[in-house]
């Protein structure tokens, strides 16, 4: 009799343990980062220290840019308000440590997606919000019109701790040119040193060159060489190990791109609820239960489009209208000759 009671209790205990485990996995579905973000009431977002068009603060401290809009989209989806973002400006050197050490939850800072970064240091890249490539800026009167005109002894200014340093070496090595790399921690010093004539060329991502050119004393005396020496897919990054949060950030970005593809804008998003196209209806949350899969309500994507706009609107507002890169180049939709192509939201 005593034995039976003992056995029974152990069975009950086992069930109890099992039960707690299942409820725990259900709760874990609502990711830790998501839970913390909702508790805090804002999204913690790491951005650059000032790159016009991507992440740049005005005198009043308002951040704008396509990288900034990714964080705003996540805030709209998760918290219902695109303005509830706390931005942390980070140098290239600090950015990954800030993310892995839990200082920020999204790193949206013109960061190149590479294998070693993705696999080796506890990060996960969720997508690409700008297809870029490394280029060179030179003085117009130098007579250099192509990267083939560089001669041994050329000095190149660039930023510290970026893929740029590695690409530059690969490029000059393949040409057999001895060069002098001058690397600064902050972009402002790179611009100042190049402007003063310390370097013959300034190399970084072409979008960065276009944005920084405005800061030179005579922007018209300088030009970006036509060649692109590397692939630089820039995109938002999250910590490894929180797959729900990873999905939320990925699909917030994808929503913006897909909204452009289906012609849904911040102005017409509400009307699109009655669209005939089921794909559009799913996108604005009028059909299906896509939000639940992410642990969100069903209006999440509608809020992104209404508050932040689609990718095309964001690009126009931040990069085209500011005169940085009016031509979208590869960052055009696949339906219009570009390479922006995202998996369907269904």
């Amino acid at each position, binding site marked *: 009799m005593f034995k039976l009671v003992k056995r029974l209790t152990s069975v009950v205990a086992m069930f109890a343990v099992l039960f707690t485990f299942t409820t725990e996995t259900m709760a874990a579905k609502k990711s830790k980062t998501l839970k913390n973000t909702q508790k805090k009431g804002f999204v913690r977002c790491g951005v650059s220290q000032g790159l016009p068009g991507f992440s740049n603060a005005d005198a009043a401290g308002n951040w704008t840019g396509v990288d900034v809009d990714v964080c705003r989209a996540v805030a709209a989806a998760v918290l219902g308000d695109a303005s509830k973002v706390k931005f942390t400006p980070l140098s290239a050197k600090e950015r990954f440590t800030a993310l892995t050490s839990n200082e920020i939850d999204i790193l949206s800072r013109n960061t190149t997606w590479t294998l070693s970064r993705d696999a080796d*240091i*506890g990060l996960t890249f969720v997508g690409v919000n700008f297809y870029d490539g490394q280029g060179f800026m030179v003085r117009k009167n130098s007579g250099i019109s192509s990267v083939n005109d*560089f001669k041994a002894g*050329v000095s190149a200014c660039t930023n510290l701790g970026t893929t740029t340093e*590695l690409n530059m*070496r690969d490029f000059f090595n393949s040409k057999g040119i001895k060069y002098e790399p001058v690397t600064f921690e*902050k972009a402002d*010093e790179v611009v100042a*040193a190049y402007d003063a*004539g310390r370097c013959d060329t300034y190399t970084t991502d072409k979008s960065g060159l276009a944005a920084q050119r405005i800061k030179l004393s005579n922007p018209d005396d300088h030009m970006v060489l036509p060649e692109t020496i590397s692939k630089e897919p820039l995109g938002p990054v999250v910590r490894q190990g929180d797959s729900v949060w990873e999905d939320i950030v990925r699909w917030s970005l994808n929503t913006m791109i897909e909204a452009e593809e289906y012609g849904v804008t911040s102005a017409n998003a509400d009307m699109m609820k009655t669209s005939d196209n089921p794909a559009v209806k799913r996108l604005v949350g009028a059909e299906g239960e896509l939000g639940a899969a992410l642990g969100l309500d069903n209006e999440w994507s509608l809020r992104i489009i209404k508050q932040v706009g689609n990718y095309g609107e964001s690009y126009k507002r931040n990069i085209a209208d500011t005169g940085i890169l009016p031509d979208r180049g590869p960052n055009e939709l696949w339906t219009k000759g570009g390479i922006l192509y995202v998996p369907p939201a269904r």
Partner: protein
Amino acid sequence: MNFKKILPQLLTLVVVILVFGFFSYNAQVNMENRGITFGYGFLSQESSFDVQFSLIEYDGSHSYFRAYLVGLLNTILVSVIGIIFATIIGVIVGIARLSNNYLIERTAAIYVEFFRNIPLLLQIFFWYFAALRALPLPEKAEPMFGVFFLTIKGFFIPAFVWNNLDIFIYSIIAAIIAIVFVKIYAKKKQENQGIQTPVLLISIGLLIILPLLSFLLGGVNASIEIPVIEQLSQTSFTYKGGLKLPPELISLALALSLYTATFIAECVRAGVQGVSKGQKEAAASIGLTPNQVLKLVVMPQALRIIIPPTTNQYLNLTKNSSLAAAIAYPDLVLVFAGTALMQTGRAIEIVSITMLTYLTLSITISIFMNWYNKKIAIKEK
């Protein structure tokens, strides 16, 4: 009784071990959770980035460890240059502050107050961008003595191309050993017979004659390579050949020495003023010349006061050299804790190595200065 003595120490030790254990355990768990691996294996991997200025042969095909050495040597180089110049400027300014000449005294005082009260990072930026503004482009540089070219791209100076360099170095070492013997002999002679030997003159003579002999007899010869201007494009030029000191090194060394010299000047002033007036008067009364008073009476006593705080300034200068990253001088922090850290993502490993390296550098300087301090301290007999 004995146990009571040990107990507090034992407790402290346990607490220290517990705190360190907690932090390392915590780091381990967190790194595991985030999928970060730990290890120093990356040091032997190919670094695949280049550095603009290096004292040893290096390019991206060398290992991360080699990159670490490049950074370390550059840090040591700028620290040594800084320490030498800071000491020279500091001693001159410190003595100038004691001058009876109002103009000299005021100028020195203004210099000290000005430079020690502006943050060092600002001074570094100031000198760097002042250099970039003031220095001419390579094609417009006026040669100094026909062979030195100070340009925005660097200070180009002639370099020696050596034959049998090792014999030349041996001759210098031999000269130094000989000088040590001369010194010991001179001291004995003074103690026994009271006759002073001109050690300095003999030392300089030895330092000139022995290396000269290595040229005449040892088969050493050196030719001088003068920098030659070279065109890179229609509007940009550089110099080839010779030795190049980057403007980053020059402005960093300048900023560090001007800043630290102010503190050393104050140490020197305090030291000299710390020697009581009676000492000088007594020395003068027994017929010593003013030079001898300074050399034999004031300085030996002043040094005892000067050395310990000056050691602190040397340590500060070495650590402050890590601000180099701001102006692209490839020191330890920029090369290793900067680029290498970014490329590998091994923050804990690299930061720990960097910290240990600075600790070792500082301890080395401090051991040397303590030894020197002991040597000149009063020997109680």
